[in-house]
């Protein structure tokens, strides 16, 4: 146990709870303390642990104070923030600044009957009908999830009654605007039978500061419910970001997860879904676009626990500079999951000699009569394709940009919300040498 965590432990247990939401509720305090003890007992993961073999998180404890900040949101930056969201009128917008909801910056809009979209901190502070189970994690995938439970500042609780369909996406913007700020968002989405929604989680860093975000998103889909979840990671250049997104799916539900890791110094996403009922559909798409010394790690896991479910996973990486990408995708087909149809692929484009990728697709099958495929590739830009483009008058750099854009676009194109798709497309193009030119022609 390192000294930093120890000294910090005292502080966290004594002082921190006083400004964290729900400190008046004994069950919240108990949950926070026991989670904190789990975190302290384990400490930061080290590379000796299989799940952290390629990702070194030691710098997080070194560079940031882990204590959640209580910096009040600064409405002066309002104008700047809106530039990063979609048109307000086309979303239900919640803006969190350094982990705290800013009501000034948020624009909930009108929700249909049976839809509740609330701040977790508000719910905890008012001791409203917040089911304790919502705050419990059935599966604590990493020790960072325990840390999040201990120190959650705020987050979004979305609850849809059976049959409720949200037409507009819920847009959650998490802004880090401090220096060395630690941010612990906790989001909980519970969709009743046949309910449908699209949720965008956008993490945005205003500064090149060593901020640390430790986020957890819990998703529960009742029978026939459908959630499209799109995570856009656009943290500042020196930021650390660790997050878990965990779904539980009942029969016939559909969960589509899209993860775009574009920013940050170090990013780790653990994305999982448990297909508990028959005929679920689950798709995991992801794109990591890295350069400089960026590091992005996606650990995904899909558990097929019931028959006749379908899962699709497409992850792609584009790595330049000295960046490092990690993909570990596990699909587990449990004994009851006959007639599983699972496909997983991870493709990587290395743009420099110093860039590195560790890819580990894993398939574990304990059932009969299943259709499962997986594969991973690592390659460079294709010479034949480059020549083809250049032979049409397109200069070499533009040709390269076009090919990279095309590689990314196969993933971006799977996002169903058109405005979001266009936004991500533009963010990717902003990173390419001749991206502006392509943008103009789209």
């Amino acid at each position: 146990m390192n000294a930093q965590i120890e000294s910090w432990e005292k502080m966290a247990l004594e002082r921190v709870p006083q400004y964290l939401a729900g400190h008046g509720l004994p069950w919240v305090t108990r949950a926070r303390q026991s989670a904190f003890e789990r975190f302290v007992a384990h400490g930061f993961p080290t590379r000796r642990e299989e799940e952290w073999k390629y990702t070194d998180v030691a710098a997080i404890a070194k560079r940031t104070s882990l204590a959640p900040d209580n910096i009040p949101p600064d409405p002066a930056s309002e104008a700047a923030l809106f530039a990063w969201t979609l048109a307000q009128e086309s979303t239900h917008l919640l803006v969190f600044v350094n982990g705290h909801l800013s009501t000034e910056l948020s624009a909930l809009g009108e929700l249909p009957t049976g839809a509740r979209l609330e701040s977790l901190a508000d719910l905890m502070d008012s001791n409203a009908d917040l089911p304790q189970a919502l705050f419990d994690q059935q599966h604590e995938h990493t020790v960072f999830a325990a840390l999040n439970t201990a120190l959650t500042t705020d987050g979004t609780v979305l609850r849809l009654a059976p049959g409720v369909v949200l037409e507009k996406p819920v847009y959650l913007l998490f802004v880090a605007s401090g220096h060395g700020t630690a941010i612990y968002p906790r989001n909980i989405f519970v969709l009743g039978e046949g309910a449908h929604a699209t949720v965008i989680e956008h993490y945005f860093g205003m500064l090149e500061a060593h901020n640390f975000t430790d986020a957890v998103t819990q998703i529960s889909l009742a029978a026939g419910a459908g959630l499209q979840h799109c995570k856009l990671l656009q943290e500042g250049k020196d930021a650390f970001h660790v997050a878990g997104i965990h779904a539980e799916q009942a029969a016939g539900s559909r969960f589509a997860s899209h993860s775009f890791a574009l920013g940050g110094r170090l990013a780790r996403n653990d994305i999982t879904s448990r297909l508990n009922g028959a005929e679920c559909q689950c798709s995991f798409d992801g794109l990591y676009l890295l350069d400089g010394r960026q590091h992005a790690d996606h650990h995904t896991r899909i558990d097929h626990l019931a028959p006749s479910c379908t899962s699709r996973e497409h992850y792609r990486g584009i790595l330049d500079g000295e960046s490092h990408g990690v993909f570990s995708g596990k699909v587990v087909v449990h004994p009851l999951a006959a007639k599983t149809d699972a496909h997983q692929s991870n493709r990587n484009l290395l743009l420099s000699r110093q860039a590195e990728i560790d890819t580990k697709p894993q398939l574990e099958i304990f059932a009969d009569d299943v259709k499962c495929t997986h594969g991973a590739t690592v390659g460079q830009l294709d010479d034949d394709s480059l020549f083809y483009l250049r032979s049409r008058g397109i200069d070499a750099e533009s040709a390269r940009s076009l090919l990279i854009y095309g590689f990314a676009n196969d993933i971006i194109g799977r996002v169903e919300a058109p405005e979001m798709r266009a936004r991500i497309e533009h963010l990717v193009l902003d990173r390419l040498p001749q991206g502006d030119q392509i943008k103009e022609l789209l």
Partner: protein
Amino acid sequence: MLSVKNLHVAVEGKEILRGIDLDVRPGEVHAIMGPNGSGKSTLAQLLAGREGYQVTAGSVRYLDMDMLAMPPEERARAGVFLAFQYPVEIPGVSNALFLKTALNSIRKQRGLPELDAMDFLTLVRDKMKLLGMDEKLLQRAVNEGFSGGEKKRNEILQMAVLEPSLAMLDETDSGLDIDALKLVADGVNRMRNAERAIVLVTHYQRLLEFIVPDVVHVLSQGRIVKSGGAELAVELEQYGYGWLENEVQVS
């Protein structure tokens, strides 16, 4: 316009073109025929600027420029076009974006303003209609999942849009049904004019019935072993290449 002199080309140490001489003047249509593996595509790709070939002797001049010193995009901007024997698939890039990017870079070179979205669409739609192409192909990724015939027509569409001065077509007729062949041949014939030269690489006399060439060359084992008028293609159709190869050995 194009002047190839004593061109020797090797790939990975193996000599593939062994002394090619070829002169193409504006307004002319040349056909290059010859057995599989004789070097036709190598010649066409080299002229379009493909890397990975060693030119061991000879020269290529195009519009009085040393063509071999130019990167492929500069050749294209100077009016060189190759319809590929095997068009390349570009996943994730729509045909429309590809064509617009290409057209605008060529227009820029020619000092013309970039086309706006509307004018571009009008232009491309017209050309597609003439080639009997489904407009939906514009929104699909370049050549991805295109049928063999659609790929070939897509090459001709690019040629029609980019309006090159020297168009080389490498077996664009292969894999086309007879109706598509006529549409493609019409497309090529529409482009024929006094300033433009066309080089057709083909195995079939049938294409040359629709696009009558001024000169026919036979390439065999890296050399042009015979050149003649349109009637040479008819003889080849009847007798094959065997008699020519014998002729070369005798001479």
